[in-house]
């Protein structure tokens, strides 16, 4: 009894000492006044919510803020006492801090919660709603509508009492269709066929021919490569070339030409390596990730830039599939869209396990000969390496590097050597940690090559001289030069040892907050199955996902009409523009998914619609009513993308090399371009022969000093996903088309072509020139004007034979240099016309 009493007294005493404050009466007012504006129900800055028990005790992105029973260890107390919180300068009074401390000491008790612990973060924003196929509207002018697209467009026009435009002239229509589907203008023969085919279905047959052209894949690959921020070099200061980046581009072209469903297209790029027994193509497809920039600048923290790549991958997936500026949540919760910083890092966590992996990815026909030659080559490699004592020295090298790696802080040369492995190779640091027998073969070979090259980072000249290393390097180079050749790909694989992912406070890799697991955003339908990349990819292209189809269909639409149904094709969030035709967008999205996510089906639907086939001529009645042509009462004249301008000029000139796929090329460019690269380090060995005349999408994209014609005509710079290119008009474009030797050569060749291929009269030659460049015959006024300028130029060149020979260096039978020169000048005029670089 006595014992019980004293215990009771003791308890009473303790509670009196702690004097647990009442939450509602004492604690909550302090929190309300100072904290819950930023850490409450409406806003949870840094993920912290202090008005409810579960959230408050779990803490924010940097960890728990309250340690019940231990006020001194609670971050909340530390920050208010230090005056760091609240941030706006008004410090808490000592009495208020006292109350908070006492409350925490007493266990930080909240009143019981009512309702769900985490509110469902569903949003009512239009783009997050499920995609349902709307009923097609009934329209008055049923004869005009060829398909559902037309009914949606016309219903809106009829509401506004606007008539659609008549169909474009046949010449303009085929040129538009060819440029839109293949990025190339129609040849005069194709145009002739189309004009003379007066049977029904002529247009649809042209559509099918173009959809089946291998150039279709090239044209539409370019749009995808904009999103994939494709480039042929690393970016950043060193900007080293990526000799195998093109294998990914090759895969994209091929997949599009085969009309691979967008669902499969997605899964192979995001998780091809995780598919059962992945094919070389599937391993090349995940090269999508490898388009991230790589910083090989000396002295960088490799972890910092590895993390930058992971963030880039999360942002790119967000823009490309979800049309959301997910990257905005890298440093803080998204200000406008339902993407918390925690969710950004949950997305990040999917990609945090990626490891660079360069693999053999043979093209058809390569594998057989390669396999046959391998055993002999491998045996020579091993023998040569062994004869110089390579294996034992490499073991010593490895041991030294790993020792340095595990004892950081002491910047000796070996530590630099370890850093270089991270810096200069694609992901070989973790491979080096593996025992030789555990290493993937390709990567072990790459490591041996690296070791032979850079043994001097660890061993002294004398040590290496003892082993005759110079002679090994020489012999090795000779052996490598004769090695069986096979195409490689930049691929990825899961890391050998799983990494933990954390929220990074303010995006800083040195400030990890709480750990996060891979997961998708709460505002979107849940992902099914284990949280891995494969299921993430499947989730992106599931029928329930409201964004992927809308975003993808909208981008395709944008290419045909100059603006998407949602103008901000990169932003379907709260700050993006609302769709001009929401029902049409949903109808197309549903149709796209239900067709098996077939791009060609979508293209066919659009280009066979009456809406697409309208004339693009400006209409006086629309200038006020619809200046941006949102209502689609006409087509829109569009300036061609940079690549199509080059390709059209080469095609008109008869110079274009139509080869599909393969490595990049380097057409001539002024020397001054690469001089601006870091320490003049970029090399630009000009391509010879047919490679000079490849299509623009094959031009080697060197990130720090890109090919000028591409940039002048608004190609993206390949550092971030680009969903919508600009279409600018600048004097530099004029200078480029007028004076770039590539375009002068096109004019010269076109001039020769006119002399050789057309019947020898001015009218016939001019007609061919117009057909080659614009797909149509000259109008009388145009022919008259060109005739005048031709005569003037002819006279001028007769007086200046030197210039004539310069303009017309070839010899064409029965044509004087002045005549040839004058045709070069006429060709140059046509290649500079506004109409030439537009599609009507």
């Amino acid at each position, binding site marked *: 009894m006595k014992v019980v009493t004293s215990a009771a007294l003791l308890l009473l005493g303790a509670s009196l000492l702690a004097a647990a404050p009442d939450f509602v009466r004492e604690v909550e007012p302090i929190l309300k006044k100072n904290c819950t504006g930023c850490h409450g129900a409406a806003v949870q800055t840094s993920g912290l919510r202090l008005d409810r028990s579960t959230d408050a005790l779990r803490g924010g992105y940097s960890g728990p803020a309250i340690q019940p029973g231990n006020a001194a260890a609670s971050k909340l107390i530390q920050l208010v006492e230090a005056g760091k919180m609240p941030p706006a300068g008004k410090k808490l009074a000592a009495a208020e801090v006292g109350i908070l401390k006492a409350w925490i000491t007493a266990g930080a008790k909240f009143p019981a919660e009512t309702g769900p612990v985490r509110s469902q973060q569903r949003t009512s924003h239009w783009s997050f709603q499920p995609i349902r196929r709307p009923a097609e509207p009934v329209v008055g002018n049923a004869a005009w509508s060829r398909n559902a697209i037309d009914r949606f467009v016309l219903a809106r026009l009829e509401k506004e009492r606007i008539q659609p435009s008549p169909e474009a002239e046949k010449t303009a229509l085929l040129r538009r269709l060819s440029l839109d589907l293949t990025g190339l203008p129609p040849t005069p023969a194709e145009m002739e066929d189309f004009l003379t085919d007066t049977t029904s279905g002529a247009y649809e047959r042209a559509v099918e021919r173009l959809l089946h052209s291998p150039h279709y894949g090239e044209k539409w690959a370019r749009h995808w490569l904009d999103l994939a921020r494709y480039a042929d070099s690393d970016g950043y200061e060193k900007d080293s070339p990526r000799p195998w980046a093109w294998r990914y581009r090759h895969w994209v072209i091929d997949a599009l030409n085969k009309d691979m469903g967008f669902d499969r297209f997605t899964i192979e790029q995001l998780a091809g390596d995780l598919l059962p027994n992945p094919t070389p193509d599937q391993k090349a497809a995940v090269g999508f990730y490898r388009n991230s920039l790589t*910083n090989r600048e000396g002295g960088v923290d490799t972890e910092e830039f590895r993390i930058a790549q992971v963030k880039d991958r999360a942002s790119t997936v967000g823009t490309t599939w979800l049309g959301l500026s997910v990257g905005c949540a890298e440093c803080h919760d998204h200000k406008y869209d339902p993407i918390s910083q925690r969710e950004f890092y949950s997305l990040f966590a999917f990609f945090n396990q990626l490891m660079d992996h360069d693999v053999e990815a043979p093209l058809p026909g390569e594998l057989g000969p390669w396999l046959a030659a391998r055993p002999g080559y491998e045996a020579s490699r091993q023998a040569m390496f062994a004869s110089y004592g390579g294996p034992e020295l490499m073991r010593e090298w490895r041991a030294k590097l790993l020792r340095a790696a595990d004892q950081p802080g002491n*910047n000796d040369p070996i530590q630099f050597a370890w850093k270089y492995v991270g810096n200069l190779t694609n992901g070989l640091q973790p491979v080096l940690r593996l025992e030789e027998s555990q290493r993937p073969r390709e990567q072990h070979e790459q490591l041996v090559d690296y070791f032979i090259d850079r043994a001097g980072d660890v061993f002294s000249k004398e040590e290496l001289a003892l082993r005759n290393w110079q002679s090994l390097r020489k012999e090795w180079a000779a052996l490598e030069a004769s090695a069986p050749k096979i195409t490689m790909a930049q691929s990825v694989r899961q890391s050998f040892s799983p990494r933990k992912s954390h929220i990074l406070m303010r995006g800083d890799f040195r400030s990890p907050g709480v750990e996060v697991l891979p997961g998708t955003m709460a505002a979107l339908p849940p992902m099914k199955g284990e949280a891995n990349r494969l299921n993430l990819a499947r989730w992106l292209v599931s029928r329930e996902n409201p964004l992927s189809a809308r975003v993808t269909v909208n981008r395709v639409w944008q290419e045909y009409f100059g603006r998407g149904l949602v103008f901000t094709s990169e932003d379907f969030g709260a700050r993006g523009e609302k769709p001009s035709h929401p029902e049409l967008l949903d109808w197309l999205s549903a149709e796209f998914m239900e067709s098996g996510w077939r791009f060609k089906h979508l293209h066919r639907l659009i280009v066979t619609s009456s809406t697409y086939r309208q004339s693009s001529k400006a209409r006086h009645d629309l200038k006020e009513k619809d200046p941006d042509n949102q209502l689609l009462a006409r087509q829109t004249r569009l300036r061609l993308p940079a690549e199509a301008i080059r390709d059209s000029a080469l095609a008109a000139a008869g110079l274009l090399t139509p080869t599909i796929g393969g490595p990049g090329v380097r057409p001539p460019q002024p020397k*001054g371009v690469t001089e601006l690269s*870091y320490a003049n380090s970029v090399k630009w060995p000009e391509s010879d022969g047919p490679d000079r005349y490849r299509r623009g999408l094959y031009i080697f994209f060197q990130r720090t000093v890109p090919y000028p014609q591409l940039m002048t005509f608004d190609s993206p710079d390949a550092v971030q996903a680009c969903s919508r290119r600009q279409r600018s008009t600048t*004097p530099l474009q004029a200078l480029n088309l007028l004076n770039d030797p590539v375009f002068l050569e096109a004019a010269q060749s076109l001039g020769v072509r006119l002399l050789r291929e057309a019947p020898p009269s001015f009218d016939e030659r001019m007609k061919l020139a117009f057909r080659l460049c614009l797909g149509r015959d000259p109008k009388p006024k*145009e022919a008259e004007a060109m005739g005048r300028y031709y005569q*003037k130029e002819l006279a001028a060149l007769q007086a200046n034979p030197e210039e004539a020979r310069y303009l017309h260096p070839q010899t064409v039978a029965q044509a004087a240099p002045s005549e040839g020169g004058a045709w070069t000048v006429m060709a140059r005029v046509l290649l500079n*016309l506004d109409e030439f670089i537009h599609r009507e």
Partner: protein
Amino acid sequence: MNPTRRGFFQKCAGGLWAAALAERLGAEGMMARQPHFPAKARNVIFMFMEGGPSQLDLFDPKPGLSKWAGKPLPPEFIKFYESKLAFAQPDAGVLPSPRTFKQWGQCGTEMSDWIPHTAARADDICLIRSMHTDAFNHHPGQLLLFSGSMQFGRPSVGAWVTYGLGSESQDLPGFVVLASGRGTSGGVTNWTNGFLPSLYQGTVFRNSGDPILYLSNPGQLSRQTQRTTLDALKELNEQHMEETGELDISSRIASYELAFRMQTAAPGLLDFSKETTATRESYGIDDKTTRSFGTNCLLARRMVERGVRFVMLAHASWDDHTELNKKLKENCDMTDKPVGALLADLKQRGLLDSTLVVWCGEFGRTPMVEHRLGRNPDQGGRDHHPFAYSLWMAGGGIKGGQVVGKTDEFCMRAEEDPIHVHDVQATMLHCLGFDHTRLTYRHLGRDFRLTDIHGNVVKKLLA
């Protein structure tokens, strides 16, 4: 076009029409615009000393370091440096500067004996000794310096300024980049338009071949043929405009006319024959050492005279990890005389008041030595140092003849008036008449600005 930008242009210039034009036109769309408030500076010459010049050997004397020569820093400094250096060891020996410093001008600002021409302009210069930045590698540092963020994709300061003010020139680009030495780490990202219209991208004037890419007529193509070509083009484009009713074609026509004017104006810009011998001499045009940077400095003045809004002079590289004494001297010899000449010339012509001049690197260099080549003192260099370095400004709206900020005894940290890169950006925009929080552009639903969410105008710097 987004509403913010439309609003901005409406306030500034001829309303919607001007805005539409700016979207679509070449330099015609660059017409001059008024800033938020009246300001002195109308032009900028930004001298970017790529690589990180050593403040310890040029601008921030630390005579006290000699007693630490060869010894490691005190432990708390070593600890501070851990994992924050690119190459050097945190406990490497201190490297006192062998330079002599003396006071210059009326104001008595101390500067090094290797930059006497710059130092002679001390009364015009506002020297900041307390700069700091966030990046300790080159490209990230340059991204931050020029675009206000280490993330890619944002417009550079030159693009922002040209976006805000347009251009005064009818036959030259509004934002020009002149490079000397070798290429910079940042390359195009230092003068990118980012998400702003392409119109605002920096145009590079090149050292060899055409100053602007494809500026000259190809080979032996005569001026007469070029004129005939342009006349024919114009006539056919006009016919097509009539046919289609598409007024945008007039922008294309105008862009060709402007290109033709540039073909005339740019060579005129490069023609120094009307400059006096004294001017040529002062910039060092005829001296092999100073020719390259001197030419760019003189070009900068001539561009400003012709209304070019923003001239960036990039000189690479000051990244002296090794042989500091030799390499720093070379860079000083190449640049100092032209810098001094440019300031004097601008002042004499009454242009300095309306031209904001900035000289800086992306960071500074460590007080400790870095040994890569060997232990010989002549081979030593300094590592990257983002925590304390120097930058100077002069001209339009800046109070010259003063030193702002102070570093600690080792030049490790900015002790007094620390000034961040974002603060410099905010102050630059202020000198040009902009509130840096209101010069915005909407992209991905957000109103972006040069200073991101940071930056304060530093009043002490202002006249």
